[in-house]
């Protein structure tokens, strides 16, 4: 069972994000980065499939600057077999369209039964790469997947996906693109033997030229800004409840202008 796992490195959820003074992005210096949690579900699912079929390969494909190697290494320490690191300034911070183009180009040299993507990345929240990648590769895709059952002949899979208020079960021919949703599994921790082995596993570094793509971004980010700081609330004190209620209604109508 061969899986290609697309992985993005994102700021740790516990990091305090600051916008850089130019407003062109966030300050990345000094912050901790992690594997996008939805991609971590993907890594885990791919490892489980390989273990279940007792054969195959798990390849990690990531786009990002030098530090993205750390996240690939973490996935290798979890048990993945090898990594492909696309590191090119033209792609690293590009829009989902360009990222999907680069991923599709890199995927052409890899054999796979399934391509896993996180259903979204927790930093920019576009939720687009999986769908675009499937389109570029001409593959079917199933989004928000919480359960994967691959047929013994690896020609199809039964997938369970989240829908509003419930679950939908679908059958899909393989190969396909699956986007992982929370609930798919509990990702394992890297083991120490895994960490030692990860050091020796290959990570193939590539740039856009080597992939033979010239990416064309469709979006340009204009400005990054922080949400306005919450203003202090107003306290209505020292009144009987009916009078206080009147004041609240007046304040909501005249000051907040929401009723």
């Amino acid at each position, binding site marked *: 069972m061969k899986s290609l796992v697309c992985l993005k490195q994102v700021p740790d959820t*516990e990091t305090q994000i600051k916008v850089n003074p130019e407003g062109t992005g966030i300050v990345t*210096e*000094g912050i*901790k980065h992690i594997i996008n949690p939805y991609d971590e579900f993907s890594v885990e699912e791919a490892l489980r499939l390989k273990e279940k079929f007792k054969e195959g390969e798990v390849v990690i494909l990531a786009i990002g600057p030098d530090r993205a190697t*750390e996240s690939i*290494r*973490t996935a290798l*320490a979890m048990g993945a077999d090898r990594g492909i690191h696309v590191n090119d300034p033209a792609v690293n911070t590009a829009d989902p369209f360009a990222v999907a183009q680069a991923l599709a180009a890199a995927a052409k040299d890899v054999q796979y039964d399934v391509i896993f993507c996180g259903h979204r990345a927790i930093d920019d929240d576009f939720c687009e790469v999986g769908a675009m990648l499937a389109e570029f590769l001409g593959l079917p895709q199933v989004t928000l997947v919480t359960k994967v059952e691959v047929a013994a002949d690896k020609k199809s899979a039964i997938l369970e996906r989240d829908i509003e208020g419930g679950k939908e079960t679908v059958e899909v021919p393989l190969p396909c693109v699956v986007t992982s949703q929370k609930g798919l599994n509990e990702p394992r*921790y*890297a*083991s*120490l*033997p895994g*960490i*030692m082995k*990860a*050091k020796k596993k290959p990570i193939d570094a590539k740039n856009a030229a080597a992939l033979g793509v010239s990416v064309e971004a469709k979006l340009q980010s204009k400005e990054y800004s922080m949400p306005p700081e919450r203003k202090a609330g107003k306290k209505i004190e020292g009144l009987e409840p009916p009078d206080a209620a009147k004041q609240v209604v007046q304040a909501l109508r005249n000051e907040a202008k929401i009723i």
Partner: protein
Amino acid sequence: MAERFMSERNLKFVLYEVLDLESLTKLPYYQDHSREIFDLTLDTAIRMGRDLLAPAFQEMDKQQPQLVNGEVKVHSLVRTFMKESGEGGWIGAGFPYDAGGQQLPTTVAMAAGFVFGAANFAAGAYPLLTTGASHLILSFGSDELREIYVPQMLSGKWQGTMALTEPQAGSSLSDITTRAEPTDEGYYKIFGQKIFISAGDHSGVDNVIHLMLAKIKGAPLGVKGISLFVVPKKRLDPDGTLVSNDVTTVGVYHKMGYKGCPITQLSMGENGDCRGYLVGEPHKGLSYMFQMMNEARLGVGMQATSIAAAAYYASLEYAGERPQGRKIATKDPSLPQVPIIEHADVRRMLLFQRAITEGSLSLLLQCSLYADLAAHSEGEEKERYDLLLDLLTPVAKSYPSEMGILSVSQGLQILGGYGYCDEFPLEQYYRDIRIHPIHEGTTGIQALDLLGRKVVMKNGAAARLYFEEVYQAITPALQDPTLKPYAEKLQEALGTLQAVTTHLVGFALKGEVELFLADATLYLELFGIIAVAWQWLLQGLAAQEGLQAGPTEQEALFYQGKLMTMRYFYHYEFPKIQGLATRLTDGVAVTTEMNRELFAD
């Protein structure tokens, strides 16, 4: 529990910038390792701490272990964590490759232990005990013992313990009475009682392996008649099934803290069928056990540090959020209240916590580094690191344990009434940390070890080496205008320490052993403050270096915070050595002249 229980930045500062951990990878034993591997290891430990251990921290305190039908039921996390620790390779991390380990430096393993302890000290204790016990079998046991026990213990399926204490023999191990009767079958029959055995029986594993001290019938009196045995809860039948080995769990103690890990009372041989397997040679048990005890002593110091660290971050978080009062200089009641971190006295308490915690962490990792260097060097160099480690082990066990209690207490104080209530974790930290000056040799025992044994051994060779090490920090610090005043203070303190030592050893030379050792605990305290001051000067050097390298704004704040905490230590904690030195040299006998009658009423 607070959001943050440790600082990754600080841990890496100590490991890489203060101790230069990466230099270890030049030793052939560690040649497969690298900073990348250490970082990945710590990163994984932090994730396990945050996602696996911390969520059960309070629950394990509230759902204490219960003795049900002869077996101790523990929280379900124990089995999960033992399994993760086994499968993840944490239990045997430092062992050689051929023994199923990863040859990870002790320093890194200790750092990971710090993370686990800060997240959930009680849970962290189970694998730690198993590491020590399996290391003992690996070091001194026969091939057969190694083959049967070590793999199962490293996998986390079998728990390891150290079974020393008996009802009548706690600190005084020479008085143990558990006896081992030889048989013709190659094993001994064990009879006796053990108490206070941590993780001595529990539902989180399939078997428990006690590394137990006992006396072989007819052995010499005292410590020279003590032997070490492997005594399993269940033994392997020839057909490979596990059967009862006549080790009965008689009771579980109800403790004030550390409630997530049972401390048990065990009875061996009630039916005359408890088998023990001799480790190494007869009558050498205590010297073998010292390997585990010394490792465990550093482990205890680290656990105390980890609890103190978690408490520090909890009170720091609270101090930044809790509005109370106004700045002393502006008592205008119409102004909004300020968070209590704005009050100097609250900052004093926070600085106290930070100075104790980060100073202790640094000292313990320094000792771990000596352990790594001693284990993998030869000749004179090996002896140097062995002696330094021997000398500093009682200090690195006691200072964090004793001062950690005070540190958590100050943290609790910051929360005021909330600190005293179980809605916040401080009261649990306060209860949890109290065990540390007691187990693995009380502070009194550590003090006797330091003054009565370590300082004077080989004509003071260890102390001389230690002074050399401290001078390696003083010399460069004297060249730095910011650090110079502190380097001078430390230099002066070494003179004080020397004078106190000479004075006390003078009693020993005159044969007045009582007077020599009566105040050993105060001597240990004095020694500890100076040792931590040394570590703070090292941290000051590293922080200055960091500042000179043109750091980012955030990094600069980190280094400046370090320097400020160093200043705090030298101006608030360090002066205490003067009072201690005065007492230790004034020559007035008090505790030795006091007697029971004078305590009458």
